């Protein structure tokens, strides 16, 4: 279980990294290596060149403005957990970060790598979807901005060109009075969740978003249920079941149960008096 042969470079800038990517068709970016590392070892990924962007200072920027927040792609889960970077999410992102895998993974894994890997079960995919985030993508001709739901085309398939990379994420800042709920049902600590839910209620800004995550398929938003919560309603189990049935009609009974269970827990946290 050792990787096949590859070349390795450590570019000095995003521009340099993009040039490296463009120069070698089999090149792949690596940052924390927490997903790519095992795939290399299992020889499921066989890049001819690894472009290590783990230390690029441009990817460590973060900002929590009054209206919009930004998190750089190279920021590790642990930096967010430890509140070492500006947080515009009223504590939601640090809370989520603490629930990702294990501390050893969080020390190295990056938020940009997590989203670029496009594993539907990834915690950041759910959390940033609930925050209404956009992805900032860099390419040689400049930057482009794409809403997160559109960024993930399918499992492990991001909307990234051959010589593009994720620079970071922007999302509308939450007010200090924002409330959130977050629940993961996993068979053991550190494992990807079988069902997950995130609820954000920011009454001062009139924002309410509810997102569900599961191992198969991207996170889904439940806008109808969110409207009901925003209107100061407490959804009943029937409301939850109806919202789930309409958003994800293909679920089997077990999946319905655990997703509604996770959602119930997250709602209870967010709406706790």
């Amino acid at each position, binding site marked *: 279980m050792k990787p096949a042969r590859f070349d390795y470079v450590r570019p000095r800038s995003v521009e340099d990294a993009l040039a490296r990517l463009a120069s070698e068709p089999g090149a792949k970016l690596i940052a924390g290596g927490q997903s790519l590392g095992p795939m290399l070892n299992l020889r499921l990924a066989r890049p001819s060149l690894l472009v290590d962007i783990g230390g690029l200072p441009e990817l460590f920027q973060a900002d929590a403005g009054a209206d919009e927040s930004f998190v750089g792609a190279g920021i590790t889960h642990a930096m967010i957990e430890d509140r070492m970077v500006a947080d515009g999410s009223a504590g939601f992102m640090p809370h989520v970060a603490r629930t990702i895998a294990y501390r050893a993974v969080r020390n190295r894994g990056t938020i940009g790598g997590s989203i670029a890997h496009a594993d539907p079960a990834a915690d950041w995919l759910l959390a940033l979807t609930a925050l209404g985030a956009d992805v900032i993508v860099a390419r040689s001709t400049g930057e482009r901005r794409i809403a997160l739901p559109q960024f993930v085309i399918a499992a492990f398939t991001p909307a990234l060109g051959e010589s593009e990379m994720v620079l970071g994420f922007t999302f509308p800042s939450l007010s200090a009075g924002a409330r959130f709920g977050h629940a993961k049902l996993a*068979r053991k*600590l550190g494992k990807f969740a079988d069902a997950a839910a995130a609820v954000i209620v920011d009454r001062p800004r009139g924002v309410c978003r509810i997102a569900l995550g599961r191992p198969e398929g991207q996170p889904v938003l439940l806008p109808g249920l969110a409207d009901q919560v925003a209107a100061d309603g407490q959804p009943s189990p029937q409301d939850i079941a109806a919202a789930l049935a309409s958003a994800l009609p293909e679920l089997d009974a077990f999946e319905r*149960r655990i997703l509604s269970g996770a959602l119930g827990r997250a709602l209870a946290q967010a709406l706790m008096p």
Partner: protein
Amino acid sequence: MNAEAKTGQGIGARVLRKEDARHLHGRGRFIADMKMAGLKEVAFLRSPVAHGLIRAVGKPAGAEGEVFTRADLARVKPIRSTIQLPTFNGSDQHPLACGKVRFVGEPVAMCVASGRAEAEDLAEQVTLDIDPLPAVVDARAARDDGAGPFLHDEWGSHLVLTTALDTGIDEVARTAPVKVTRSYHMARQVMNPLEGKAVLAYWDDLKGQLVVYTSTQVPHMIRTAIAEHLGLDQREVRVVAPDVGGGFGYKCVLQAEELCLAWLALTFRAPFRWTEDRREHLTSGANCREHVYEVTAYADTQGRLLGIDADITVDAGAYSVWPFTACLEGTMAARQLPGPYAFRAYRARTWTVATNKPSIVPYRGVARTGICFAMELTLDAVARAVGREPWQVRRENLIAAEAMPFTSPGGAVYDIGNYAGSLDMALGEIDVGAVRRRQAARQAGEPLVGVGFANFIEMTAHGTRAFALAGLPFVPGAEPAAVRLTPDGGLEVRVGVQSHGQGMETSLAQIAHEVLGIDVARIAVVHGDTELTPFSTGTYASRSITMAGGAVAEACDQLARRLAKAAAHLLQCAPEQVELSAGLFRGPSGDIAVSEVARIWYLKPELLTPQMSLESLEVTGMFRPKTDTGQYSYGTHGVVVAIDPATATLAIEDYVIVEDCGTRVNPLIVEGQTYGGAAQGIGTALLEEMPFDGAGQPLASTLADYLMPGAAEMPPIRLRHLEIPSPNTRFGIKGVGEGGAIPPPAAIFNAVNDALASAGVEVSATPLTPRRLFAAIAAWEAAQPGATPPVPAPRERAP
């Protein structure tokens, strides 16, 4: 033990483990840590299909000298492990597949390079032409299937072994007022010690020896096996087990890779290493546990057992491992299923079935985790059938302490124990009445709580007869230990057992300290090297502390007697007049330290009589227990669970363990063994499963898919001890290595079934995955008054 002893370093003292220092500082010496000039690394090309005929194995052009197949290893005999039972079918396992492959992961070619990655590059270039055959993956179905293709054509069946014993079940079946029948399934598991298997072999020109470093529990057995399979004299083979990162039974058998590496070193007179990676471990190595039970209990109207009728099917995988064969599970299950319960009518029929999976290996607890599961769940079902509390029915069926020694209907002889006392102690820790009140007062939306108990027995320090009856290639005899006093009064203790997490470098030193009073820090326990230690069958089956511990005491006793003669001479008194205490010989007119006697014996022999110099201070002691039928530890696990129907999750609210392993040499180590075993048992109950698809492909090839319990999955465990010394061993010691891993699935499933009992819903297959738990919850909900029939889902999946 008296209170004084418990405060010192001897038996009963909570001495910190000496071996932990090097591990905590990252200075352990495992095979993967070793460095050697010219060392080459080995990767195995393994079969991608479960069953098939090998048409051709093609070596990459130019690499013919670095890639080896069965034909190259002609001098190596196949592994053939046999048991002297009439229905047994033996099989040849070749070091590299020969003619046929019988499981995914079976080694087919061996590739050698300067590094592991390069060796894996080579393995990718080997071409493999295999005609696939249908795979046998369901042992229960194959058991009754007379048609092939069979794994081993010459058998004409799928059966490795069938056994039957019957003490008269028919009579009971006719007359018993209560009859309860259940089926149970234990999932196939993987042992997952922290360190997987590893082998490093080289040729030592100085000694003219093949030296094989291997991560093993049984170095002397592996030495014998390597010599036999490679046609060498045993003096030409040295086997060393350096630091070994856990075994759990995986490392008590000969592995094909050990023979392959030995052949490389012998042939090329150079060093080679293979380090098993986790994917190899999961998919091709350490498979265990998979049993199917069909049990009928006969009882009176109070739940008193009248008889048990058990059909046991063991999914044994492809080959019989050496030396324990594929039959250990089935024969152990039949013999031990009655457990701590007193009933007379017993029928047990076993079928050990060959399947296209890795060979079954005896995992911590061996068959007893399965039989405890079957027996304890059945007892609870009997209790519910007669409308009584499971703990009461369980208690009334236990063998009474006064009835010991007791011969079970399976033929096992239990030595001593207070089984009801163990259950009572657990009942004193868990308030069953409080659980019943919570159940009665439950409001909608609240968790479903349940309480479960399981009793277990743990056969430790098996004697010669049990193994001889089974006709295994290896039968353990009396156990040796060699002790050597050094001229400065320190002690070297050499044992043929191997310590790979059991803390024997400490506990055996405590036993020597108990006899000689030498400071534990000055006692070195040497193990794991055939060149340095006396022959032993090794560490397995919870035998080492009893057997090797007894031998250390015997050797130290003899040494003490010789030293006493010298001490008496020096103190100018008779040997009977000196007394050894705390490292000092005391006589009528003075005293002398053991270390001073040692110094004089080695360096100033002129001060002693010439006769005294003829009695060496290097002594081998031998030990066997007074009874040859095994020393039985036992205990009770009690669990309270809370099931949340809203999320289909289960929480362990309370977990209590009571156990009796006789005299505890080091209570810290006993607790560690028990907690660790319980963690593995909880993994068995809730998490661990190696599934296979219909083609025999293993479906959990990384630890992302094969779930191991971690610290966060462990409930706080409250541990209590009975301590009834064995009358048959030195100091009353019994083994404790496996007990913790035996009853957790039984206790947890009984608690779940208790929580669901109002609807008569039961779970019966490990592990209790969220889907399986949800199915049970849904059945419970459907049985509630006013329940609406469940809405049919658009797309249901198989659990």
